[in-house]
């Protein structure tokens, strides 16, 4: 009965795959775009538990009283940010090719959360030191060509060499702390993208030891440049955030 069903869905049942002698960890890289930006890290974890079941991925289950699969997500993405580089490590216990994992998952995911790559990882999430974000900023201040150029210059100066410290209150579990966010910024560069739209590339601290939410970059711009004022109409003053990738402490690309 199961095999019949499975044939209809065009894939092999996980139970028909040979067991591995040892469970293996694979890394899945996926996008989180569009409407998916509004779901939290916790929502994502719950969702993947079900995605893996319906995709018939041969997950290894813990052997205890309450068996559960082992999945470990990478650096949490703040709500309101999109990403092309979310990561989840899966522990599987049966033979399956990485391209099969990708295809089976993509058949069970919406267009806004497609798997881009599946591979056996050689790194640990703790190797991540920085993440790169693309921030698109729509503001009336950039409506004119001169205004847009002036704004990009001011943003580049704010984060460039010899810039003034940007002191902000950073919230953490251990309480609020005043910090200079420049110490958590590797680079920020702005350019004109379109009429009224500025594009910012930001490489900022990410990971378990030091982490900067890209929202702090926006808050800094709001504070220093007076753009995106609170209560401004959403069609005139807006921004989007997209995570592009990660770097290790030595500046090499994290994969």
């Amino acid at each position, binding site marked *: 009965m*199961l095999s019949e*069903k499975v044939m209809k869905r065009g894939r092999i049942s996980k139970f028909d795959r040979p067991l591995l002698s040892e469970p293996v960890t694979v890394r899945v890289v996926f996008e989180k775009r569009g*409407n998916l930006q509004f*779901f939290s890290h916790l*929502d994502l974890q719950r969702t993947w*538990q079900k995605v893996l*079941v319906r995709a018939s991925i041969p997950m290894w289950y813990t052997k205890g009283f309450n068996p559960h699969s082992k999945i470990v997500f990478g650096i949490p993405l703040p709500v309101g940010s999109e990403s092309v580089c979310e990561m989840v490590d899966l522990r599987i216990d049966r033979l399956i090719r990485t391209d099969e994992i990708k295809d089976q998952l993509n058949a069970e995911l*919406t267009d806004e959360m497609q798997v881009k790559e599946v591979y056996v990882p050689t790194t640990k999430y703790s190797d991540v030191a920085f993440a790169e974000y693309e921030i698109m900023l*729509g503001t009336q201040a950039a409506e004119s060509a001169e205004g847009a150029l002036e704004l990009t210059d001011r943003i580049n100066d704010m984060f460039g060499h010899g810039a003034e410290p940007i002191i902000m209150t950073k919230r953490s579990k251990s309480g609020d702390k005043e910090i200079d966010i420049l110490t958590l910024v590797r680079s920020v560069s702005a350019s004109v993208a379109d009429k009224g739209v500025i594009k910012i590339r930001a490489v900022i601290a990410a990971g378990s030891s030091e982490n900067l939410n890209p929202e702090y970059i926006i808050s800094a711009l709001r504070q220093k440049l007076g753009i995106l004022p609170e209560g401004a109409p*959403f069609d005139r003053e807006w921004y989007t955030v997209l995570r592009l990738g990660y770097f290790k402490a030595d500046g090499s690309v994290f994969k």
Partner: protein
Amino acid sequence: MNSNQKRMLLTSVSKPGRYAGGEYGQIIKDKDDVKARFAFCFPDSYEIGMSNLGIRILYHCLNLHPDIWCERVYAPWVDMQDKMRELDIPLSALESGDALGEFDFVGFSLQYEMCYTTVLNMLDLAKLPLLSKDRDEDCPLVIGGGPCVYNPEPVADFFDLFNIGEGEEMLPEIVRLYIKMKDEGTYTRSAFLHEAARTIPGVYVPSLFDVNYNADGTIAAYTPVYDDIPTRVVKRIVTDLDKAPFPDKVVMPYIETVQDRITVETARGCIRGCRFCQAGIVYRPVREKSADVIDCQARNIFESSGYEELSLSSLSISDYTDIDNLTDKLLSWTDRNMVSLNLPSLRADSFTKELMDKVASVRSSSLTFAPEAGTQRMRDVINKNLYEDDLMRAVNVAFSAGKNQVKLYFMQGLPTETDEDLRGIPELAHRVVSAYYQNPNRNKAKPPQVTISVSPFIPKPFTPFQWERQDTMEEMRRKQEFVGECNTDRKVRYTHHDPEVCHIEGVLARGDRRLGAALLEACHRGFKFDAWTEFFDYSKWMALFADTGIDPAFYANREWGLDEVLPWDVIDCGVSKEFLKRERARAYESTTTPNCREKCSGCGANKLGGKRSCCPKK
């Protein structure tokens, strides 16, 4: 609203996932390819609405038609409502993001009386006129269905049409008639409503009935305005549950919802006929789905959803005739797929060790039963047909298996109740505690914990107790305290319901059309989410009734006359009034009535037909 604006709006409110849409399994159609658009509204939060099985089924039924597009709408939380009003954004559907005003139909699922204010709140957010008579040809048709429509009169002024009964067939028929009349060019609002009332069984158009009242405030008569429409609307049922459409794929919420699992019905209706229970009457005749179909449906949803929890749903799961075969079938694939099986609504008299070993819901340390009353006399009055021995046997099965927590549900304020009956509640709980200590196989490391939860009785339409008076606030409070005082066992934990909500629910449950004026004013005063304790304000309700000339006691605390015209007499749920009167008389004699399988009591519901039912053929 473009995607950038949507991002800015959604990141400014709590839990933006409620409003994002984009879930796996949602149905997207091209609006240029469809002839009718249906906005299915649930008058509560996303988390509650997304858990509703009825909406999952009807969303599927409507979307099976290529020229109908059904979308989902939930009540935005208050912070979002403030933003929407501030920015002048009307309420919209999740799939397309289009405002409700652009739809052909706006349908509401009326699950509980306390949601009425949220219904009006949502119409208001959608910028639609609240009153049916104020909506013109360009406005969507506002229709309603669900358990509350067995007495829809309090909200009759706001709805163009109600679906009385089960919607799998009726709802698409209504939309098809609309499409047909539009295609033929014969559609006007009034022509459509008349035609629907005339030709589609189960359709109730409140504006097509005039209501007259007597000098004492009771109803004189319901008169249809056309002579070619039925004078009473007969409830619609799906005859064969095996053939009723059931989704093979569901919309998967990303955020956590109240019941995030596979739910499959095993049967509709209940053989028991407890005299306070509306569901036990209005869903008659009892019809079962066959085990093979249930198994197949559960498995399809498992494979398309990945849910690792399966819940079988019915009014009394252990009354399912083929339960052993069904659970065996299910366990053949659930166990190895790590899917846990839940059986809610277990009756104590059919709770066995065999059943317990099979299901995960009872693998937890807690078990719940509903004796409903503390003494045998009272249980006979309400026709619970449960004996203390049954309960003791059930709890001993649980205790022997190492469980130490039992939760027991009761009611207070039932007809003929005395303080002795109330005292019986904690006394029964005490005997359950004693049974724990006397059970040699109990888990000796853990103390027993018995929780008694006592709710005030609310008389509901279409029950043998529909004529009864509800306790006043003072009586409800006194009884709650009395039960607390009688509870001297420290192993028994006592909880009770808020009598204030029960009082308002009692008014709305048996309300008539005159309550419409109060609900309209409630909307103007900003009432919403009254099912939530943080928003419910009893003093505001009392002020509302006083200001709109409504006497709540007329509806809740009066003993209604057996010959009185009832607001819900315009509806025929299949069960006859004579049966309800007979049952009421038997209640006063403390005489029980056998369940439908033991002996047919002639309730009348068999006239509606039904496959795999235990009724004698008409």
